């Protein structure tokens, strides 16, 4: 099952991203080569700046892949800067941003689009505004910042939905509909990436409707095909198959190039495979293969041949499976496609095992594991960056809002202040002396409470975003831990058993010390899998509860030479599982911080249940630190601990100074 799941994921990452833009240019036929000189010459004869810019940018848009285009955009920039007109500037920078986007300079693209947005603040053009945001969403998506891409696209969509179409001319209405279609399709792709399949499905349906209204048959066929892929991903196989077949027919009717048809065949084959119709699956793969071989579509050829190999494997035709997957693996290595290296190696590992070629089987398994590991690492890094970006984004937004609120408040305050100043001055003078003493004593008290309230309010917004991120991370962790335990752990045990059983027959090899070494390697791998799986999701937590899991953690610490006092008192019997995991993870994070930075000898850990709260106290005798400075530096460990406490609706107090050790007191409502 695990294999099947990952298979699905890889497949869709590849197929779902058939950008509609590519299709547009194709269906119109290849653009004529660009004659920049004559276009610039025509421009010079026009009167208004707006006309000039329109000619330049629309030509630039139609020839986005041609380097010459840059000259048109430069001319447009030159004119708009000279006229200092925000409308012209916004259009020119939007065009430049798009040029960068299609020429793979995503950072430059984002900075140009940001400039366009700044000029749009001075000049109101909702359609252009939505277009810029939509391109920005595309760029974020390219950078892998999926959440940002979604929020940007949604913003764009809001603007489009808010446009009153009565005020537009026909060309603008057409543009509006086209934009809506593209936005819906990219939102669907993005939601599919975040595994929010229901949302993705609804956006595909909206996009499909929009395509029908626009009468764009090629777009409609592609969107339908994407929807079919998604349904497969959602395990709605029969429905998915039906949609895929319908989209294939539509693609043929729309006269799309043969690679699109072959893509449909490949997916139909996969659907049949999953439904157990191996015969039909084989037919579809074969027709996809034939087509791709004839046209030399390397990527799809690799996909089809590998999938067929996997099918042969399932049919028990191991020799054919081996041949297909070797070919697939060859191509995958050539074009450096990790998904298919993983798939083909996994298939080859099984085929060779069945064919009795243990050495090759092992080789392929090693390659499979290595590639999967590196892909996993990459994904992880991307995820961490994403959380970081989201955080910065939220922070900026909060700051901006605060600034705005401050400005407004100041205006009102000045007005009201002037009127009441006279009265207050009088009153204040009388009360001042009496209250001075009293104020001093409660000022600090009040301050700290108010400060806390303000901080709480500010962070509320950030929290909602963060908490969903953390929850997502937990789910992801659980899945990976399960994968590790289910697939790799079991597999290793079996390899070990197989290996032991053949060990006797290869005593000659044993003399070369190879078997022993391999045995050691397998043991090492077992330990490693256990360690990773445990770190991801401690199994003891679900079986022996939080106290048991914490005791295990402490024993581990003692083994590392720490002097640890652990006291668990009066903990609630029943606790929500998520809270349990989160609390454990929090403690894990704190301990890892102590181990990394504190240079402590002894650690005190107390978990005390009291009324409806859980009190967690962790104290070490390490070197301590300057809290303000560490917070200012944005220490990742601190931030992570604080946000975990916030997520649990708890309160945290850091008590530390350089050379003084650290005492951490945390209060968390026990929930339920």
């Amino acid at each position, binding site marked *: 099952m695990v294999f099947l799941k990952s298979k699905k994921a890889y497949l869709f990452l590849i197929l779902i991203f058939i950008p509609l833009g590519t299709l547009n240019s194709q269906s119109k036929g290849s653009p004529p080569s660009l004659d920049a000189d004559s276009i610039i010459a025509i421009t010079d004869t026009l009167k208004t700046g707006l006309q000039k810019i329109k000619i330049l940018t629309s030509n630039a848009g139609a020839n986005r892949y041609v380097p010459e285009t840059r000259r048109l955009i430069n001319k447009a920039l030159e004119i708009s800067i000279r006229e200092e007109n925000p409308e012209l500037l916004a259009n020119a920078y939007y065009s430049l941003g798009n040029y960068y986007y299609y020429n793979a300079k995503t950072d430059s693209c984002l900075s140009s689009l940001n400039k366009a947005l700044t000029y749009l603040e001075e000049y109101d053009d909702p359609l252009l505004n939505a277009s810029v945001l939509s391109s920005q969403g595309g760029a974020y998506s390219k950078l892998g910042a999926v959440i940002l891409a979604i929020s940007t696209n949604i913003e764009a969509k809001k603007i489009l939905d808010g446009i009153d179409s009565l005020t537009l001319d026909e060309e603008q209405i057409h543009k509006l509909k086209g934009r809506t279609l593209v936005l819906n399709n990219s939102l669907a792709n993005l939601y599919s990436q975040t595994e929010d399949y229901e949302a993705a499905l609804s956006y595909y349906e909206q996009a499909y409707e929009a395509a029908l209204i626009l009468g764009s048959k090629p777009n409609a066929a592609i969107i339908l095909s994407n929807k079919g892929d998604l349904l497969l991903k959602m395990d709605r196989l029969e429905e998915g198959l039906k949609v895929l077949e319908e989209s294939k027919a539509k693609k043929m009717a729309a006269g799309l190039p043969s690679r699109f048809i072959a893509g449909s065949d490949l997916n139909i084959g996969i659907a049949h495979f999953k439904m157990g119709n191996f015969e039909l699956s084989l037919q579809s793969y074969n027709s996809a293969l034939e087509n791709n071989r004839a046209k030399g579509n390397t990527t799809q050829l690799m996909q089809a041949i590998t999938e067929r190999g996997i099918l042969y494997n399932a049919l028990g035709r191991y020799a054919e499976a081996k041949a297909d997957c070797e070919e697939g693996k060859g191509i995958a290595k050539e074009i450096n496609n990790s998904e298919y290296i993983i798939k083909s190696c996994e298939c080859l590992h099984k085929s060779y095992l069945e064919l009795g070629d243990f050495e090759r089987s092992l080789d392929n398994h090693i390659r499979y594991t290595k590639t999967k590991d590196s892909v996993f690492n990459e994904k992880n890094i991307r995820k961490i960056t994403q959380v970081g970006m989201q955080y910065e984004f939220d922070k900026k937004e909060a700051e901006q809002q605060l600034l705005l609120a401050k400005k407004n408040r100041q205006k009102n305050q000045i007005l009201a202040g002037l009127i009441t100043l006279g009265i207050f001055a009088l009153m204040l003078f009388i009360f001042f002396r009496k209250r001075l003493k009293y104020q001093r*004593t409660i000022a*600090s*008290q009040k301050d*700290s409470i108010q400060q*806390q309230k303000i901080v709480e309010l500010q962070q509320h917004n950030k929290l909602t975003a963060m908490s969903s991120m953390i929850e997502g991370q937990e789910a992801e962790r659980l899945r990976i831990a399960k994968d590790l*335990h*289910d697939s790799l*752990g*079991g*597999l*290793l*045990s*079996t390899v*070990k*058993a*197989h290996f*032991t*059983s053949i060990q006797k027959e290869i005593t000659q090899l044993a003399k070369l010390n190879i078997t022993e070494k391999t045995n050691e390697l*397998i*043991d090492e791998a*077992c*330990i490693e*899998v*256990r360690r990773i*799986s*445990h770190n991801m999701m*401690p*199994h*003891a937590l679900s*079986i*022996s509860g939080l106290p*048991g*899991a914490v*005791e*295990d953690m402490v*024993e581990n610490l*003692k*083994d590392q030479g720490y002097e640890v*006092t*652990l*006291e668990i*008192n009066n903990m609630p019997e029943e606790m929500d599982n998520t809270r349990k995991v989160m609390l454990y993870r929090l403690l894990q994070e704190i301990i890892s911080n102590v181990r990394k930075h504190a240079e402590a000898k002894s650690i*005190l850990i*107390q978990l*005390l249940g*009291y009324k409806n709260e859980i*009190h967690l*106290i962790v*104290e070490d*005798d390490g070197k301590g630190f300057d809290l303000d400075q560490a917070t200012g530096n944005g220490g990742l460990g601190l931030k992570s601990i604080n946000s975990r406490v916030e997520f649990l609706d708890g*309160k945290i*107090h*850091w*008590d530390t*100074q350089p050379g003084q*050790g650290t*005492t951490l*007191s945390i*209060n968390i409502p026990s929930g339920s």
Partner: protein
Amino acid sequence: MIRVFIVDDHKMVIEGLELLLQNEAEIEVVGTALNGEDAIQRIPETQADVVLLDINMPGLNGIDTCKKLLKQHPELKVIAISMHKESSLIKLMLSNGAKGYVLKNAGQEDVVKAITKVYEGKSYLDADVNEIVMNSILQQPSKQNSNNFPTLSRREKEVLICILDEFTTQEIADKLNISFGTVETHRRNMLIKTGARNTAGLVRIALEYELHK
């Protein structure tokens, strides 16, 4: 002939164990099950002597399965086979009546040895597992202190001494260079630990039990 029954939610692991045991003349695998419920139902009819039981299974986990099995058939010998070597799991398993504990990456000899030993009425722990159990027994003390209160942390003691010296909260905050709120948190935690209702109670209990020393 020792009759062995294998329970594991992964078919691959069962197959591996069967392979490992098939050459042993005096051991026979009489049945396998993929989950705890199934195992409890099927083990009686196989008349198994020894059960190899996985801990981490969906549904009924190995620990509960072991308990239920032995309640109905106290003569059965259960050996836990697991990927995990957390001492809390080992202890739970042993206290529920398992006679052996073997890690999944153990070699053929270990598994066979475990089965024969347990069958003879002895118990068997993997060398690694044995060490873990020993360590955790040796580490047990050091946890209890003379009174029944949870230990006061170093910082709490410092705050307590200041309270005994009649410092106000603000003065304590200034002296220890921490915020007002943090002093309050320490004080509140001490109330919770001692069960005192207010600072006066805390002072009384602190003096009585010499908590500040």
